[in-house]
C-alpha cells in the first residue's frame, strides 16, 4: 500500500483526536469516580472548582505539575523515572486497535474510526496487557523501599495469574467470530452481542479486568491499609500522576475492550454508533466505580485461589463447551 499525503494527514489526525479523547475521558473519569463515590458514601465530593466541580481535573494537573519531584537517594534513577511511562504507555497503545464507530464515508473514501485494524488485534491487546506488568514491577523495585517492593511483588503475581484467565475467557469470542481482528469481532455481533452466547466468559473477563486494573476488591498491590501506597509509595508529583492517570486510561481501555468483545462494540439501534460505543464504555467504567464503593478487599490467598482454582478451570470448561456447541450445531 502506498501512502498518499491525505492518508498520512488522516492518520495523524486520528492519532491526535484519539489522544484528546482518551485524556479527556480519563480526566473526567477521575472526577466522576470522586463524585459518584461521594454520592454512594453520602458525602458531597469535589464541587468547588467550576460548576459542579467540572474544572477539578485541571486543578489536579496544576497541583501535580507544581509539586516537588522527588527521587529517593537509594533508588535506581533510570528505572525509577522510566517506570511510570512503562505503566501508562501500554494502556494508551491498546486504543490503536479499538474501533470507535462504524466506518465513515467521506468524500468518496472509507475512513475507519480506528488507527489500525491489525490481523492479530486480540493478541496485540493481550501482549500489551502482558507488558503493562513491567511498570508496576520496576517502579516498586527501583524505589528501593520495602513497602514498594512488597507491593510490586504482589502486583506481579496477581497480574500474571489473572492474565491467564483473561486470555482464556477471550478464546470463545475468537471461536465465535473466527477472527482475531477486532473489526471482524464487532461485525460478527451484528445480530446478537456475544454476551448472550457467552455470559460465563463475560463474567470471567470482567473479574479478570478488575484484577488487571488492580482495583478494589483486587487492589492488593497498593493496599493502603498495609502497604502505604504499594508500588508507588515513593512517587510524587507528575510521576505519581502518570501512574494514576495510567490506571484510569487502563480502566477505559479495558472497558472499551469488554464492550467490543461482548456487548457488540459500536453496534446498537437508533443512536449513532460512536455514542453507543461510549455509552457502553461508560456503563462498564461505572461498574468499576460501583464495585469500588461496595466491596471490601480480598485476602491474598483468596485472590490466588479465585484466579487459579475457580476462574481458570471455568474458562477452560467454557472453551470446551463452546467447541462442542460449535461442532454439534
Amino acid at each position, binding site marked *: 500500500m502506498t501512502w498518499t499525503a491525505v492518508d498520512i494527514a488522516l492518520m495523524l489526525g486520528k492519532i491526535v483526536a484519539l489522544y484528546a479523547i482518551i485524556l479527556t475521558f480519563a480526566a473526567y473519569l477521575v472526577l466522576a469516580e470522586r463524585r459518584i463515590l461521594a454520592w454512594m458514601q453520602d458525602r458531597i465530593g469535589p464541587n468547588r472548582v467550576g460548576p459542579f466541580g467540572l474544572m477539578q481535573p485541571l486543578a489536579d494537573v496544576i497541583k501535580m505539575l507544581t509539586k516537588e519531584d522527588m527521587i529517593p537517594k537509594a533508588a*535506581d534513577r*533510570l*528505572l525509577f523515572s522510566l517506570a511510570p511511562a512503562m505503566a501508562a504507555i501500554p494502556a494508551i497503545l491498546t486504543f490503536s486497535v479499538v474501533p470507535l464507530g462504524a466506518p465513515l464515508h467521506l468524500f468518496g473514501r472509507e475512513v475507519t474510526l480506528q488507527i489500525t485494524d*491489525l*490481523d*492479530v488485534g486480540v*493478541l*496485540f491487546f*493481550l*501482549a500489551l496487557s*502482558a*507488558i503493562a*506488568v*513491567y511498570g508496576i*514491577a*520496576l517502579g516498586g*523495585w527501583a524505589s528501593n523501599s520495602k513497602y514498594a*517492593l512488597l507491593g*510490586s*511483588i504482589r502486583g*506481579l*503475581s496477581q497480574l*500474571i495469574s489473572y*492474565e491467564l484467565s483473561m486470555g482464556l475467557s477471550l478464546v470463545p469470542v475468537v471461536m465465535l467470530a473466527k*477472527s*482475531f481482528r477486532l473489526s471482524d469481532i464487532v461485525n460478527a455481533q451484528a445480530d446478537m452481542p456475544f454476551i448472550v452466547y457467552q455470559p460465563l466468559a463475560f463474567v470471567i473477563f470482567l473479574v479478570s479486568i478488575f484484577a488487571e486494573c488492580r482495583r478494589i476488591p483486587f487492589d492488593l498491590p497498593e493496599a493502603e491499609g498495609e502497604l502505604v501506597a504499594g508500588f508507588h509509595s515513593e512517587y510524587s508529583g507528575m510521576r505519581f500522576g502518570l501512574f494514576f492517570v495510567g490506571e484510569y486510561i487502563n480502566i477505559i481501555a479495558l472497558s472499551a475492550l469488554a464492550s467490543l468483545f461482548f456487548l457488540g462494540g459500536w453496534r446498537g439501534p437508533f443512536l449513532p454508533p460512536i455514542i453507543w460505543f461510549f455509552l457502553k464504555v461508560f456503563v462498564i467504567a461505572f461498574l468499576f466505580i460501583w464495585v469500588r464503593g461496595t466491596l471490601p478487599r480480598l485476602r491474598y490467598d483468596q485472590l490466588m485461589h479465585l484466579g487459579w482454582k475457580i476462574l481458570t478451570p471455568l474458562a477452560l470448561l467454557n472453551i470446551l463447551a463452546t467447541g462442542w456447541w460449535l461442532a454439534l450445531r
Partner: protein
Amino acid sequence: MEATLFYILALVTLVGTGFAITARQAVRAIVYLVNSFFALALIFYLLGAPLVAAFEVIIYAGAIMVLFLFVIMMLDLGHPERMKSPRLVDWIPALVLVLVTAASVAVLAMEHHAQPLAAFSGISVRQFSQALFTRYGVAVELVSLQLLFALVGAIYLGRRR
C-alpha cells in the same frame, strides 16, 4: 522504508542484547533483554509474520521475563555483583566462540549467491494455524506432552510432604 526500519530494529536488538549480557544488575539486564525482544518482534512483523511477533511479546517478554523478574525480586538478587573485571584467561572461551561464529558466517557468505525471492506478502493467522495443526500437528502434540510432563514434575516436586 522497510530496509531502514529493519536496520534500526536490528541495531536495537543487538545493542539491547549486548547490554543485557554486560549489565551488572540482574533487573537492568532483564529490561535490556525485553527491549531487544520488542525489536525482534517488530522484525518478525516486518517479515510478514504478525502472529509470531505477537507470541514473541506475549510469551518471551510478557511471561518468561516477568517470571525471571519475579524470582529476582522474591529472592532479592537485584544487587549488582561485586566482581572484578575478568582476567585474560576468562576471555578465551568467548574469543573461541566469536572466532567460530565469524568463520562460519564468512564461509556461508562466500558460498551465498543472492537470488531474487518470490513475492511474499506475509501469512495470515488462518494459514499459519492450519499449517501448525495439520502439517506440524504431531510436533505440536509432542511439545505439549513434554510441557505436560514438566508440569506434572513441577507439581510432584512442589507438593507438600
